Structures are given as structure tokens and as C-alpha cells.
């Protein structure tokens, strides 16, 4: 099609919009709402299902072993998962840690404590007790300083890493490396401050909610035992055993530790798998592991699926969103047909003056494309408003702390492009029939009736 004709068709389309502003607005709004709902659900879906560390999908694994009740498998809600528990016992996790087979090993749990000694009022905060490999293993960005070395893990050194937001609260955002703070009345020295880091979902600990923000403090794992701490996260126990003392808890069958290993190649994975299986057999001979052998190394993508971070409700929601878009488009087809047929007499005149069916078709398709483009652009704006509302709602729920929902302010670029491309293509496809239909009208009939 010549550029001049395309310009002419666009000009005619704009005139047509002015001729039926109400009908045009209705069509644009129908497409806009369909696109907005798709953008919102796709963005949330992507935020909840994306692998935030995809580039390490073939070397980062969480370790799980089925140490659960010999008489019944691990359950989530009321349903058996047919998976090992997502957490490990202290005994098993530290065995993996001390085996030294992986390039990096992280054993960790979440606790809660009170920060003081920085001049401000005492502040309760979530704290992650982890081995120092956490930072390089998960490619955590630093604003100041760094994580701690392995030598600071055991015996544990009094070192701490702060999140950027916590550093802003405690030290007004200044470089606080070398400064000290007190955590539950124990003094720790700041060795690093994280830059912005909001992995979503929070893949390394999905037990606290996929959109929970990372913790504000990171302290060496071994301090957990030294300070006689219990996990503030999930602690799942199946065995009737005494848990009164710290010693009893650490030696119990309760699972409460996340365990991650970085295995760069197949050989290292096979070595780790063999180690787990041997350890399992040895422990089984000693009376543990009453269930069939199920020792797993699970990469992040599979882990998120296993833990149903993206549950069926979300998938259904995406399906419903696209169904809604489809309904909007079907309505648009009806409206387009009504609009085009109402101008059939004018089309008849154009045909009499020399417009071919193809030219009539292209003229109307140009009008459809403009409606689709306008609807999609408006849908983009409505989608942004909707996501801002969702963000506002969840930001309030998180008492102003930054978290995964912060990311909902940002469109999932791919998802948005897909939704817009889909809307434009679908509208064009939807407009094919009305545009074709109007081109097939017998012009003579309408010339007499005008």
C-alpha cells in the first residue's frame, strides 16, 4: 500500500471517529480494559513465577532429603507433596556444609532480633543467619564493603552485612563499613552494605512468602547455635521427641534450615548426589530415614515449580484475563460491524467512484489498527494505574518496607509487549471480518438508499 493512501486512510479513520465518537470510545475502552487486565495479571504472574537467578539455573541447587515420618509423607496444607521436606535438619544440613564437596555451600535460617547501639531507638528486624557463601552464590550486589570470608563462618566472627534500606535507617546511607551495632545485645561489626536487591520470588526461602523482602541483616550461621537461637521461619517436626533444650532441638528431626549448593558441572553434581545417598544409607543403618530414599538436588526453576510458587490460581487468573480480552475483542467485532455497516452508503459511494474491494478493506483495516493502537496505549496506562494500586495495597501491608511488590511498579517488559502485540493483532484479526464484510456489500443497493 502506498504511503499516501495509508495517510489518506488514516485521515478518513480520524474523520470516522469524529462521526461516531461514542461508538469509537466504547471500542477503545473495551480493548483498553482487556489489555490492562492482561498486563496486570501477566506482570503479577511473571513476578511470581520468574526465576530471578536464571543464569545460574544449571549450577545452583537446593538440597533436600526425605527425613520425614516413615508412616506418612511430608504434607503441605492437607495434601501430601510427594517431595522431601523443603527444609533440612540441623544434623543433615551441617553434614552437607562440612562435606566441602560443593564450590559453595549455604546453610541458613531466618530469625528476628533487636538492633541497638547506633544512636537511634531499638529496632526489631528480620535477620538471616547464613554461611558467608550466600553473597557470592546468589550474586548479591554490594554498595559498600563485601560479605565475610569462610574463615569468619566458624568459629563465627562478630560481623554483619546490612541491607541498603537498613543502612539508610541506621547510618543515614553513609558508608558504615567498620561501624558497630548491637544485635540482641551482642556487638557486631559492619563488613558490608548491600545495594538494592529484591529477588522475586524470594527463591532461597519460599516458606515466608514469595514476595517477602530479603532480610535487613545477615549474620554468620554459626551464631545461631552460639546464641541459642531458634528459627523465626518455618520449623516442621513430625517426631514426638523432647525439644526443651537447645541441644535437643539441634539434634532433633525437626526441619528448619535451607541448604543450597553451587555445583559447576555434572561431575560435581554426581559427587554430591553420591555423597547424599551414602550419607542416607549410613544414617538409615543407624535407624534414621525410615522412608524410601529421596535425596534431591533441585535447581531454582524446578524448585519454584515444586514449591508451587506459581499456584494454579495464578495460571487460572492469566487464563481468565485472556478470556476477558477475548470477550472485549468479540464485543469490538460487533461494534466494528455496526459502525462499518452504518456507513455502508458512504462505502457504496466510494466503490462507485473507483475504490476496489481491496482498497475499501485496507481503509477499514487502517481504522481498526488505529482503534487497536489507541486502545492498547490506553490499556498500558490503565495497567500502570492498576499495578500502582496493587503496589500501594501491598506496600501498606508490608508497613512501608521495600519488597517484591516494589517490583510490580515496573512492567514485565516482555509480558507487556506480548499483551500489546496480542491486543493489536487480535483486534486486527477481529477487524478482518467487518472490514472484509463492508467491502463485499453491493454498492448499488446503498447508492439508491442513501
Amino acid at each position, binding site marked *: 500500500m502506498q504511503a*499516501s493512501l495509508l495517510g489518506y486512510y488514516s485521515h478518513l479513520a480520524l474523520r470516522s471517529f469524529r462521526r461516531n465518537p461514542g461508538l469509537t470510545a466504547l471500542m477503545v475502552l473495551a480493548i483498553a480494559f482487556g489489555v490492562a487486565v492482561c498486563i496486570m495479571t501477566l506482570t503479577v504472574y511473571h513476578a511470581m513465577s520468574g526465576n530471578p537467578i536464571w543464569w545460574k539455573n544449571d549450577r545452583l541447587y537446593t538440597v533436600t532429603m526425605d527425613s520425614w515420618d516413615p508412616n506418612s509423607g511430608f504434607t503441605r496444607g492437607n495434601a501430601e507433596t510427594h517431595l522431601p521436606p523443603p527444609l533440612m535438619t540441623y544434623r543433615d544440613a551441617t553434614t552437607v556444609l562440612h562435606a566441602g564437596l560443593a564450590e559453595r555451600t549455604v546453610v541458613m535460617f531466618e530469625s528476628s532480633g533487636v538492633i541497638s547501639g547506633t544512636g537511634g531507638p531499638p529496632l526489631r528486624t528480620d535477620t538471616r543467619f547464613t554461611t558467608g557463601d550466600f553473597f557470592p552464590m546468589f550474586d548479591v550486589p554490594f554498595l559498600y564493603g563485601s560479605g565475610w570470608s569462610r574463615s569468619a563462618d566458624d568459629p563465627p566472627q562478630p560481623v554483619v552485612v546490612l541491607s541498603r534500606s537498613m543502612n539508610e535507617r541506621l547510618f543515614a546511607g553513609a558508608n558504615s563499613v567498620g561501624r558497630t551495632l548491637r544485635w540482641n545485645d551482642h556487638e557486631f561489626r559492619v563488613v558490608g552494605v548491600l545495594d538494592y536487591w529484591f529477588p522475586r520470588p524470594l527463591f532461597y526461602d519460599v516458606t515466608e512468602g514469595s514476595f517477602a523482602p530479603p532480610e535487613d541483616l545477615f549474620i554468620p550461621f554459626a551464631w545461631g547455635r552460639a546464641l541459642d537461637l531458634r528459627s523465626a521461619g518455618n520449623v516442621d517436626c513430625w517426631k514426638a521427641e523432647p525439644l526443651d533444650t537447645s541441644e535437643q532441638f539441634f539434634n532433633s528431626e525437626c526441619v528448619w534450615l535451607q541448604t543450597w549448593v553451587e555445583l559447576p558441572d555434572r561431575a560435581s553434581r554426581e559427587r554430591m548426589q553420591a555423597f547424599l545417598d551414602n550419607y542416607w544409607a549410613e544414617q538409615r543403618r543407624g535407624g534414621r530415614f525410615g522412608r524410601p530414599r529421596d535425596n534431591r538436588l533441585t535447581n531454582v526453576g524446578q524448585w519454584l515449580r515444586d514449591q508451587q510458587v506459581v499456584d494454579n490460581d495464578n495460571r487460572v487468573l492469566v487464563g481468565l484475563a485472556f478470556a476477558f480480552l477475548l470477550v472485549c475483542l468479540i464485543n469490538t467485532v460487533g461494534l466494528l460491524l455496526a459502525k462499518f455497516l452504518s456507513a455502508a452508503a458512504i462505502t457504496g459511494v466510494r466503490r462507485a467512484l473507483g475504490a476496489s474491494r481491496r482498497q475499501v478493506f485496507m481503509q477499514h483495516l487502517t481504522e481498526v489498527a488505529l482503534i487497536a493502537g489507541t486502545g492498547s496505549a490506553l490499556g498500558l496506562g490503565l495497567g500502570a494505574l492498576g499495578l500502582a494500586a496493587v503496589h500501594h495495597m501491598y506496600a501498606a501491608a508490608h508497613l512501608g518496607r521495600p519488597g517484591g511488590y516494589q517490583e510490580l511498579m515496573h512492567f514485565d517488559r516482555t509480558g507487556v509487549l506480548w499483551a500489546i502485540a496480542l491486543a493489536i493483532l487480535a483486534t486486527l484479526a477481529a477487524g478482518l471480518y467487518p472490514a472484509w464484510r463492508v467491502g463485499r456489500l453491493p454498492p448499488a443497493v446503498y447508492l*439508491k438508499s442513501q
Partner: protein
Amino acid sequence: MLKMQDVSKVYRTDLIETYALREFSLEVSAGEFVAITGPSGSGKTTFLNVAGLLENFETGSYRIDGTDVRGLSDDQRSRLRNERIGFIFQSFNLIPDLNIYDNVDVPLRYRRLSTRERHERIGSALDLVGLSSRMKHMPSQLSGGQQQRVAIARAIAGDPAFLLADEPTGNLDSLMARQVMELLEQINELGTTILLVTHDPELARRAQRNVHLVDGQISDFRTYEPRAAPDAGLAHA
């Protein structure tokens, strides 16, 4: 030249077949002014639609300037219509939301002429009908006679060989009808072949030839003396 030979056009429903044209033959030479008359339902408009390539026919042959139109694609028929044929309708059929300039521009757009050429042709056509000062007016701002003159300008802007006029004065009072008729006569004298469908025997008598239709067939031919030259200068409504 326009030549129809044994052309039949049938409208069919589940129950009946109606012949709008029955073995209709007519030859119109270049530069002729032919009036088509006949009672309602005699096939006058159908003839004009078939002649203008707006409708197909069942049997017979139809040639425009030697080109057999049967078997032409829609694109080819549309191009032929655009370049060789101009239409004038009883109800003017101007596009209401386009101004006069843009209305006359419509057929030229489909011919993909340059902006300058389109502008020149529109100016000449509106000059001829005496409405070049009303280019920016909307159709609703003009009288019926003026609207029909715009429609004539639109029909001739593309410099067609044939002008097909379907009751062009049917919606006009006698004064305006006379002016439109004089305009058509002037255009004919400039070399454009005109086929005029009309109920009005007075108007028909102003044509060089009168073809009378009854039941889709020609019942009578009459040839008239060449008319007197129209008054110099056209009266403007």
C-alpha cells in the same frame, strides 16, 4: 465506445426470478448524449449499474472502449470505473463529513495522482461548475442544486469518457434542474459521453437519442436533432 450485446440481468429469490434486463443490446458512441427513459421497474437503474460496473450480469457481452469487462477482477473493474466512468446520483451522494474539496478529491485519491495534479483537477472541476469559491464548505452548507453541481464536479474531475447520471434532477426544483441539465450539456459538448436516466420526457428530449425501456428491454429508439448550444456562462444557484 460502450457496447452491450444481449445482456441479461436477473434478480433471484427462492420463489421467483425477475429479469431486470433481458437480452439488452445498446451501442453508445463516443461523445453521444443518450437519455434512458421508461416506467419504474423497467430496468433503467439496473442498466446504469451494469454499465457502471457496479453490478454483474448473467449473460451477454459488454465492452467499454473495446475491453470486455466480463472476467475482469474487482481491481481491474474498479480501475476501469475510476478512470473511464463518472457517476451522478439523484440524491447527490456527497460524503457528509468531507468538505467540497475533499468530496471532489475522492475518485482522484484512488487513482494515486500527485497532490499537485489532484489539486489542479479539483480546481478545474469546481471552476467548471462555478463552485471554486466554496471549496471549504461542507455539503450541508449548500443548496440541493449546488450539491448536485459538486457531485458533477466530482464525476468529471477524473476526466472520464462516460458520465452515468441517474435522475440527476429528480430532487431539484425546475430552475435548478434546468441549470444542472445545461451543465451536463456543456460537459457533453466538451466530449464526454453522457447516459442520462430520467423520468422527465422534457429532459429526455434534450438528449441526442432516447432509449425507452420496458421490462428490461428496449421498446423504442428516438433520435433528436442536435440541440441548440447552451447559454454562455452557467447560472449559479
